[in-house]
């Protein structure tokens, strides 16, 4: 190796703290990009390959009665590729703890012979466990519920009877919703066991796979509607057609949305680290000016010297690349594995992603090079005379405005020195501030996003204000169920609601759109909707209807005053839109709110309710659970079928569990951004100290103590931190808006209302001050260790 490359190596390896700081700066962005890209590719590929290998159905049609003849009819419908009948029934697990767990039984002679929504052995097994009578084969996503193979599980049927089933083993059902999301176990039983469990050997639904365009929701819906129409013509009563993200795992869209947002944040980190690289390289080149001059004096050409520094920068990049690659790979692999378990798909062996590696290479090499090229170019143009001339203590101070000086007299002199120092290198200060401000704005933005999620959940909660929401599974007289529930201590009030399916007919030619009526009593206090136009239902309204954003997504032209034709049990009914509401999240089919009094008459069930909504006196989780348990006991004693009960507290917990994952992801990214900001400040402070070595020597010579010098440096860091904090508050407003819009569209299909909270602002203030203290403590310590002799006689 020739001596000039040895010099490059010496610059790289000789100043380890500078190298570590620079490599770390480049690495944070490289890692973020690598991690995001690896993880998204790994998750989406694993998800898709696992999902597609299970021959998924794209639609389900629930109807009665269904049998093999109906299945044959359905198969003949044009566009249908495969149809499989589903024989299902539900029960509830009898458990000692308070977690209510539902179990959904699906009957099949041989789970490995399914043609659609096939199940697989769990990871590590080669075949499904044999399924005997009175045994269940449970989806592995329910493993966290705590049952072991061979355990006897007691279930309570809808008629109140209990049955004991042996857990034959676990299987992997990728096409279903995982246990963690639904708190429902999916279990296979034999048809005989199904009958023993009170179920019917008839099918209650059909799984349908279309022949082509499996991911085209419109096409799939049309085919499913055609099947539905065919079944109706054959005399079946169709309850419901379900099409949810056809052709993809349920988390496909969410995952893509999350990674889109994460990638934006990732590139933001890269962008910010670019600023830091400019700062670091500028400082490095300032330190090297004299050496550049000497090299020129001994014959080094500008191009040769330029090449040396380019190689040095590439060296930093390469080091960052080599560290970031395995780190990003292993983080993506382990994180992807965890997400696979959470989202219920089998992770494939981690393959490594060349495209991610290429992106990391670009981020680690090209970005630093682009950031560094100008500072390097500027520095290597320095003439020998400029480079080797001795400047003494740095100048560039302008005469001060006397008034300003007088005004500043109340600040101590060392403090004033810190303040002035902070503004001495304006370009460097600007770059550091830009980094810190952006980091802060994103950090606060993510906090606000979190608050916005909470607000969104609260808004959603407005539609489900009851503390306990009991579904019966059939209709009961309101007086009967309400009077029993009202006897329970802790119950404040009850309301009877009803739900009823319908089909919205827009024109006679095409198949209708499935909808669900939600009918609270007109005097209901248990719903607080977010009205976007028109009004809510009023007492006495008859055919008034309030439609939501999900229906508007399908028919954007609908507006207040329009009339809708809705088919209820084959009868065409007319409704006038009086208002529109919005609710965040995926709601399928669209919910249409009408008055209970009118709908119950219309469907021939006046005075009968499908669900009972209970408001408790305490509203807390314990009261809610006690009330539910007591109501359940009373209903059972009175022979009333108790279908399911959801507690308000559980609802919020489930909602938060899902949004919190995204927020944690984003906070991790925001923390990385904060780390980049901290590195930037640390770099700047180190450079400032280095540049002012002589000045510090002079201060020492005139009596400054260690503490004086350290505090001058630390206060300077704090000043920079505080300025950035103040500006980042302003910038966080548009960033919050962008994040709420993007995340809302990606995850919830509608923009999320942005909430601007104080918690993010104060969290970032704490973070900034801590960051500034830490980032300047090390340079301050170095500064205070310089002796007068070192600083003034180092030549």
């Amino acid at each position, binding site marked *: 190796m020739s001596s000039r490359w040895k010099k490059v190596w010496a610059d790289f390896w000789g100043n380890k703290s500078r190298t570590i700081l620079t490599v770390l700066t480049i690495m944070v962005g490289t890692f973020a990009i690598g991690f995001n890209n690896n993880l998204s590719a790994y998750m989406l590929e694993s998800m898709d390959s696992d999902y597609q290998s299970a021959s998924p159905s794209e639609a389900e049609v629930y109807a009665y009665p269904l049998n093999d003849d109906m299945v044959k009819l359905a198969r003949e419908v044009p566009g249908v590729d495969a149809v499989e009948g589903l024989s299902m029934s539900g029960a509830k697990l009898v458990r000692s703890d308070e977690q209510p767990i539902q179990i959904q039984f699906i009957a099949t002679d041989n789970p490995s012979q399914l043609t659609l929504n096939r199940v697989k052995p769990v990871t590590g097994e080669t075949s499904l466990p044999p399924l005997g009578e009175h045994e269940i084969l449970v989806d592995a996503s329910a493993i966290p519920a705590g049952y072991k193979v061979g355990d006897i599980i007691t279930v309570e049927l809808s008629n109140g009877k209990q049955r004991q089933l042996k857990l034959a083993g676990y299987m992997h059902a990728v096409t279903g919703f995982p246990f963690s999301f639904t708190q429902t176990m999916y279990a296979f039983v034999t048809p005989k066991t199904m009958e023993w469990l009170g179920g019917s050997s008839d099918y209650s639904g059909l799984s349908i796979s279309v022949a082509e365009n499996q991911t085209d929701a419109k096409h799939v819906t049309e085919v499913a509607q055609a099947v539905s129409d065919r079944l109706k013509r054959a005399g079946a009563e169709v309850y419901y057609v379900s099409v949810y993200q056809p052709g993809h795992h349920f988390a496909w869209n969410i995952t893509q949305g999350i990674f889109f947002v994460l990638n934006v944040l990732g590139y933001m980190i890269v962008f910010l680290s670019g600023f830091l690289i400019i700062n670091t390289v500028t400082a490095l080149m300032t330190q090297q000016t004299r050496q550049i001059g000497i090299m020129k004096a001994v014959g080094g050409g500008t191009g040769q010297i330029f090449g040396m520094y380019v190689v040095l920068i590439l060296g930093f990049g390469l080091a960052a690349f080599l560290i970031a690659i395995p780190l990003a790979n292993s983080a993506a692999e382990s994180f992807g594995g965890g997400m696979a378990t959470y989202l219920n798909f089998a992770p494939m062996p981690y393959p490594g992603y060349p495209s991610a590696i290429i992106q990391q290479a670009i981020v680690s090499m090209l970005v630093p090079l682009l950031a560094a090229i100008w500072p390097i170019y500027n520095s290597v143009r320095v*003439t020998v005379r400029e480079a*080797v001339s001795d400047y003494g203590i740095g100048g560039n101070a302008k005469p001060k405005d006397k008034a300003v000086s007088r005004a500043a007299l109340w600040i101590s002199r060392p403090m004033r020195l810190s303040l002035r120092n902070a503004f001495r290198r304006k370009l460097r200060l600007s770059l550091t501030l830009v980094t810190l401000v952006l980091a802060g704005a994103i950090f606060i933005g993510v906090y606000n996003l979190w608050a916005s999620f909470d607000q969104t959940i609260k808004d959603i909660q407005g539609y489900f204000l009851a503390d306990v929401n009991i579904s019966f599974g059939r209709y009961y007289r309101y007086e009967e169920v309400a009077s029993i529930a009202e006897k329970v201590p802790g119950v404040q009030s009850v309301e009877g609601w009803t739900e009823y399916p319908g089909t919205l007919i827009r024109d006679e030619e095409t198949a209708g759109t499935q909808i669900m009526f939600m009918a609270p009593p007109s005097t209901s206090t248990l719903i607080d909707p977010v009205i976007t136009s028109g009004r809510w239902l009023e007492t006495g309204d008859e055919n008034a209807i309030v439609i939501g954003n999900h229906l508007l997504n399908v028919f954007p032209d609908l507006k207040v005053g329009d009339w809708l034709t809705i088919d209820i049990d084959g009868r065409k009914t007319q409704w006038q839109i009086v208002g529109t509401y919005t609710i965040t999240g995926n709601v399928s089919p669209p919910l249409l709110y009408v008055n209970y009094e009118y709908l119950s008459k219309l469907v021939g069930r006046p005075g009968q309710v499908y669900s009972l909504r209970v408001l408790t006196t305490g509203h807390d989780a314990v009261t809610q659970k006690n009330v539910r348990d007591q109501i359940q006991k009373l209903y059972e004693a009175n022979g009333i079928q108790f279908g399911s009960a959801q507690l308000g507290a559980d609802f919020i917990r489930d909602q938060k569990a899902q949004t919190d994952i995204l927020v944690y992801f984003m906070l991790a990214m925001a923390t990385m951004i904060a780390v980049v900001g901290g590195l930037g400040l640390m770099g700047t402070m180190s450079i400032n100290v280095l540049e002012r070595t002589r000045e510090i020597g002079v201060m020492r010579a005139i009596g400054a103590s260690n503490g004086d010098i350290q505090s001058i440096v630390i206060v300077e860091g704090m000043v920079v931190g505080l300025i950035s904090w103040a500006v980042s508050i302003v910038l966080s407003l548009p960033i919050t808006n962008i994040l709420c819009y993007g995340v809302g569209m990606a995850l919830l299909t509608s923009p999320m209302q942005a909430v601007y909270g104080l918690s993010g602002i104060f969290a970032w203030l704490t973070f900034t001050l801590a960051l500034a203290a830490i980032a300047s403590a090390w340079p301050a310590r170095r500064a205070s260790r310089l002796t007068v002799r070192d600083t003034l006689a180092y030549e």
Partner: protein
Amino acid sequence: MSLFSKPKNDNGDHAMIHLRDVHKYYKTAIGDYHALNSIDLEIEAGEFVSIIGKSGSGKSTLLNMITGIDRPTSGEVFVNGTGVHTMGENKMARWRGKNLGIVFQFFQLLPTISVIENIMLPMDFCRTYPMRQREKRALELLEMVELADHAYKLPTALSGGQQQRIAIARALANDPPVIIADEPTGNLDSKTAESVFALFNDLVAKGKTIIIVTHDSGLAKRTHRTALIADGEIVNEYVARAMPTLTQDQMLWATRNAKEQTFEAGTMIFTEGSSADTFYIVSRGTVDVVLPRPGQSDVIALQLGPGKFFGEMAYFHDRRRRASIRASEHSTVEVLALSYDQLTELLDQSEVTREALQQIAAKNELVNAQKRGTS
């Protein structure tokens, strides 16, 4: 293979270094600063020249003109036949690496690489020796400066004198014909300075042209030639040699006011007894002090070479020439002429010079009398 090749002058018969009417202005907040004013300087190959002057007089600027580190505002600078003032920065760096070895006051070794790497660096940049020979050559240079034992240490581990000798070894790495040293001993104790100076003497003996800037007039005297620079102008070295007790400003005044005159070999410059109004300083060739003797052949009392002066006796003795002065037979003579009025103005400012001149005049009077008497 010898460590140094025989320096060849690419410029034919011309001087190794030639500055022609060089001016340098710097822009400052209070206007242009005239750092160098009409500098003419010739340095022959193999010469050891010192440049002296006060701080801020323009020494380093002059050196920077020669090394191409800085450019003249106007004028021409030729080094080894190359017009330094015409070269671009990049081409200059390579040319400088091959043709000039620069030694800085503060050594300026790269702190992060070893001593031997520092010496090999110019060879790497200029690709002057095959890769395999570079280390060998660097070691030989280190042996020459007696520091081979320290080859693989970092420069900071060595003393100032050792670092300066390494800087000299580095300056010699590409075997350049010219070594330029800016205050090479300025930062060293006298013993170390002496060893560095001895090294320069050896190099001159080996044919290198060396120019040093120094504050140390003692050292300057031991070089072949000294250029004194004051207020950006080179004081005529013969003025300085003739009247060393003048201040630099007075020397500069004399330089500016003296008129150059040339006399062919054998020409009589003036004759004894003629009226006198001019004082002369020899700047080239020699003059004979001729004492005419009635009825006998003239006697040559003295021969005066560059830096010597004549016309001082008449100045102090009723303005009549006390001897004849003739350009010697062998070469053309160049002199610097100052009128007696100018000399008076000068001596009025420098009593010590007046006394020195008077003493010399008296001494010469005595010598002349003896010559006349004994002949």
